[in-house]
């Protein structure tokens, strides 16, 4: 048994959300640069250059790159040899979110009730937590700050197996077409294929946080990711939706076994500020 005090988790969560909001990953910066080099639309190229300049300023001055600092979503992977001490894990994670958002000049964007009482909780809590128990004695924390301009453009459908590759492709491309300029293109498109209704959505969310340089291990899915990116960029939506060849930077697919009668497809749209950070304790 390895003991970890939950106060360490609080501090790590706080650090991760500051990092995610201030510093855009090198993979995203590289993808923006190569998109700018190839973008045929002058206005589109100008937008991509503005985004890079903005992200550099955020990192240099410790400012959040976007004012929508998001709903805080965490994937916690906990080794079954770990004994967590010092209090509730869930509370400790929320305390980390509270610390980052109140001390780090991040916007608080959470309301306590979705329908009848949309009152801001004032500290961006509660966050959304997904916990998995795995072998080992480590704790891995993935922190995602999810803006809702893009979250609101996400969709899920339960296709019939006969829909096949074509049905899956059409649904994903149509989801991006419908999002138009609203989700702040260029996008990172996370796709969850298979599993159950809720697992598809979880995989899609997880997919938005994969490094942009990652390719699917299965060559059939790697080819599908490339084909989807080509189809999405052929829509012409372009940077900020002003028209151009850069509508998405990457499509990531995560799959899971599913039921004989089903083909769940979830598409989680993420904007170019694909903010996430991770750490292992």
């Amino acid at each position, binding site marked *: 048994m390895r003991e970890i005090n939950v106060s360490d988790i609080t501090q790590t969560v706080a650090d991760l959300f500051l990092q995610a909001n201030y510093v855009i990953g090198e993979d995203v910066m590289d993808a923006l640069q190569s998109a700018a080099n190839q973008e*045929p*639309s002058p*206005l*589109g190229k*100008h*937008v991509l250059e*503005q*985004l890079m*300049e*903005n992200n550099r*300023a*955020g990192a240099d*001055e410790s*400012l*959040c*790159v*976007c*004012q*929508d*600092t998001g709903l805080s979503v965490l994937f916690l992977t906990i080794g079954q040899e770990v004994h967590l001490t010092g209090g509730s894990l869930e509370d400790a994670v929320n305390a980390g979110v509270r610390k980052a958002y109140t001390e780090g*000049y*991040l*916007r*608080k*964007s959470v309301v306590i009730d979705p329908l009848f009482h*949309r009152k*801001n909780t004032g500290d961006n809590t509660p966050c959304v937590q997904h916990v998995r128990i795995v072998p080992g004695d480590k704790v891995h924390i993935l922190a995602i700050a999810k803006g809702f*301009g893009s979250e*609101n453009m996400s969709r899920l459908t339960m296709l019939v197996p006969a829909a096949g590759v074509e049905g899956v492709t059409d649904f994903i491309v149509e989801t991006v077409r419908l999002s*138009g*300029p*609203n989700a*702040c293109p260029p996008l990172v498109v996370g796709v969850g294929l298979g599993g159950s209704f809720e697992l598809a959505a979880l995989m899609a969310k997880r997919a938005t946080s994969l490094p942009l340089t990652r390719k699917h291990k299965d060559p059939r899915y790697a080819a599908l990711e490339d084909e989807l990116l*080509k*189809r999405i960029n*052929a*829509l*012409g*939506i*372009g*940077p*900020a*939706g*002003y*028209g*151009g*060849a850069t509508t998405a930077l990457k499509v990531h697919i995560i799959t899971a076994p599913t039921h004989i009668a089903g083909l769940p497809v979830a598409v989680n749209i993420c*904007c*170019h*500020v694909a903010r996430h950070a991770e750490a292992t304790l």
Partner: protein
Amino acid sequence: MEKHIQLPLTEETVRDLQAGDRVLLTGSVITGRDAAHKRLIALLEEGKPLPVNLLGETIYYVGPAPARPGQAVGPAGPTSSYRMDAYTPRLLALGLKGMIGKGERGAEVIEAMKEYGAVYFGAVGGSAVLISRSIETSEVLAYPDLGPEAIHRFTIKDFPAVVVIDSQGNDLYQQGPQLYRKTDL
């Protein structure tokens, strides 16, 4: 190159601006998001006066992040405009001349913009730090209880934007993608 535009917008400037124009806006704007719009419309329904005169105004759809000491505002990029669509035609009828946001507008908003003569500017979503550098002062005009969603007045200098929908109803979100769409895939 960019056109330098002085706010408040005049009828003539509104007529001149064309979808696709890059502009730098200087002057002052008011801010508001869904929650503030809802309250303004509720006042109109009750026949009560608004806390701000909309005649000739430009509104920026924004809820900034908190300012660090010494800053007028924190990072302050645009929010999605479609959430304001249900309220916008009534504000245009009261003389609102400009809107700054991101994303599509509904057909009714575009019709009202043509009828009353108004412009919709796009600011680049996610370029919140750059935009905040063009905001020089900020004060709360109404609804301080809404926090970042309160109605503020910002004075701005060289605020970077693009004309997305002009007063003739031309829409860059339609025209731009048409130019770059590939149909042979």
